[in-house]
């Protein structure tokens, strides 16, 4: 058992898989010799050498295209798209190529690869380097999408992603890279498509993802202490496949559903899950489903403005308590 940062967990997860499988290769901008701009891949180049850990030009389309071609023909590439926002410059691969290949070829070809992105806000980087783009990927059929919230989950979900035979988008959260957590020694393999109940509770279900998870947990403690509201906090972890069993079971139990989302408001993962609940467990709901999100705006650079935009524990607690006390908005 060792205490690891989320950042180190990325390198550990990749190393575990590269050690196990020669077909695993890794490419991206400044990822090799420099160990990545977030220092999440330090040591891989030294350990696995220049043929397996490769620096690329600033050519995101070439990076993802090359990963796809290699994946189709037998390798298991991991590609880094440095900031998640840059997914927009290579979105053709994410939306049109990776996820449709198997279907269009009637199963002749597959695309087993992992795209890692530095997702999310909190670093005062402004509108083009701070986005939470989970929904850009969740909305595309044929992808799998995960977003871990702890070092342990990073290692285990990375392993699961690399071993999965589908294209997996792996959203790392930039503002969690420094977070520490216990990670057992030895091989760790988690499974995609599983949510985790991090705090059991009976009054309301709060769903959160990535950086919103610690904030939702903090809010839940405050809600319990200050308002006597006992929230079940679920880390969704995997958007596709989506663990609707765990989620809906909880909603049926508590009768109330809240989502805490860092993405701008419209068409986020919370909207999808809220809609599923409003359809499938409608009669078990005891009140409105409420999404607590970043407002539908680009993110500002200034620190206090950014902090105001992204949900935090206080805002979550305040909103949940107000709604639970029956004031509708």
């Amino acid at each position, binding site marked *: 058992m060792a205490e690891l940062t989320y950042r180190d967990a990325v390198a550990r997860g990749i190393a575990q898989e590269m050690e196990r499988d020669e077909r695993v290769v890794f490419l991206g901008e400044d990822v090799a010799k420099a160990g990545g701009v977030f220092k999440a891949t330090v040591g891989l180049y030294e350990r696995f050498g220049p043929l397996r850990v490769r620096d690329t030009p600033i050519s995101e389309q070439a990076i993802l*295209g090359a990963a796809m071609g290699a994946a189709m023909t037998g390798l298991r590439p991991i590609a880094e798209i440095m900031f998640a926002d840059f997914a927009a410059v290579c979105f053709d691969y994410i939306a*049109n190529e990776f996820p449709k290949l198997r279907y269009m070829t009637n*199963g002749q070809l597959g695309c087993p690869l992992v795209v890692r992105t530095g997702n999310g806000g909190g670093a005062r980087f402004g509108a083009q380097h701070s986005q939470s783009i989970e929904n850009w990927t969740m909305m595309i059929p*044929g992808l799998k999408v995960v977003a871990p919230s702890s070092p342990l989950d990073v290692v285990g979900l990375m392993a699961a992603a690399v071993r999965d035979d589908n294209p997996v988008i792996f959203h790392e959260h930039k503002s969690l890279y420094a977070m520490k957590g216990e990670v057992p020694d030895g091989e760790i393999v988690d499974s995609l498509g599983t949510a985790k109940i991090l705090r059991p509770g009976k009054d309301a279900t709060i769903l959160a993802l990535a950086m919103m998870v610690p904030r939702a947990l903090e809010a839940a403690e405050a809600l319990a202490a200050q308002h006597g509201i006992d929230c079940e906090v679920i880390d969704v972890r995997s958007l596709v*496949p989506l663990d609707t069993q765990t989620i809906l079971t909880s909603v049926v139990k508590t009768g109330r559903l809240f989502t805490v989302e860092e993405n701008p408001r419209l068409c986020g993962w919370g909207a999808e899950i809220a809609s599923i609940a409003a359809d499938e467990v409608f009669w078990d709901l005891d009140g409105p489903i409420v999404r607590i999100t970043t407002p539908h705006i680009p993110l500002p650079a200034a620190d206090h403005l950014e902090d105001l935009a992204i949900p935090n524990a206080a805002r979550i607690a305040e909103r949940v308590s107000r709604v639970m006390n029956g004031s509708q908005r």
Partner: protein
Amino acid sequence: MKGKNDDIGADKRLEMYRLQVEIRDCEKRAYDLFLQNLVKGTSHLSLGQEAIAAGVASAMQPGDLSFCTYRGHAHTLARGVPMEKVLGELMQRDNGLMRGKGGSMHLTSIEHGVMGSYAIIGAHLPIACGAAWRAQYLGKTDVSVCFFGDGTTNIGAFHEALNFAVIWKLPVIFVCENNLYMEYTPISEVTAVPHPAGDRAAAYGLDRIVIDGNDADVVYRTMQAAFTRARAGEGPSLVECLTYRHSGHSRADPAKYRPAGELEEWLKRDPVKIYRARLAEFGIAEAAIAAIEQESRRKLDLATEACKAAPMPPVELLTTDVYADGGWAWRN
């Protein structure tokens, strides 16, 4: 060059002629079937461009990989995929290459090294790089060939792929079929240089290679050199083949944007005609030539009948093969 035993030889020439004839026949049939409303969706013919498909494929070895575009029937057939499989897919029947799920723009047959046909301009150039990277990484000797049109040279992915292939010295060959038009717009109106691929090779440290794409021998010899280079670990090549499509861009296009007489000029340089004459020049008997032509029509008629008789794909196919487990479940 005109002796019977030049570097190409009679057998190869007969193969290249057969390929050109089969492609020509099959593409014409596709057009007929479209007129009969039996080809659904769109389709993009290579009528007039057959020498490229034939010349490239004849220089390829088993195991080499082809990456095609929506205009990929020719390259798919040239790798040995049966006509029935291609026409079946155009007709979106259950006997098609992808059982009608992909359609004419996405012909794929991994068994024949046809690693997909891509319908978003430029996307497959980086993908071909990736396949070549795999070969290099695993120490294999196969080469990836990527076909695309003149218009494709103006999209960003072209640029990224070329640079990437060169710096990683990848065994990939980029074959630009310059048929003078993007869809309906002449390439010269939208391109900063006269030769959209050839005049850009130097920007990637590559040799300028611009060839007659209507002469299968020229294509074949050029490709042989490129394959040798790729297999020797010397990196990629970019080959611009000058050609012309005899029909419109896609099935819906009557090609009215062409200046009068242009098609006629190019018809004089019809690759199939040129190559038929070439065979004769090299002393190949008319009977052997005619046999190829007859056999092609026979195979084509059989294939057509088989396609007409083939069922539609079963409805269950709708939700298969979204994910690797064979299904489409995005939730538990």
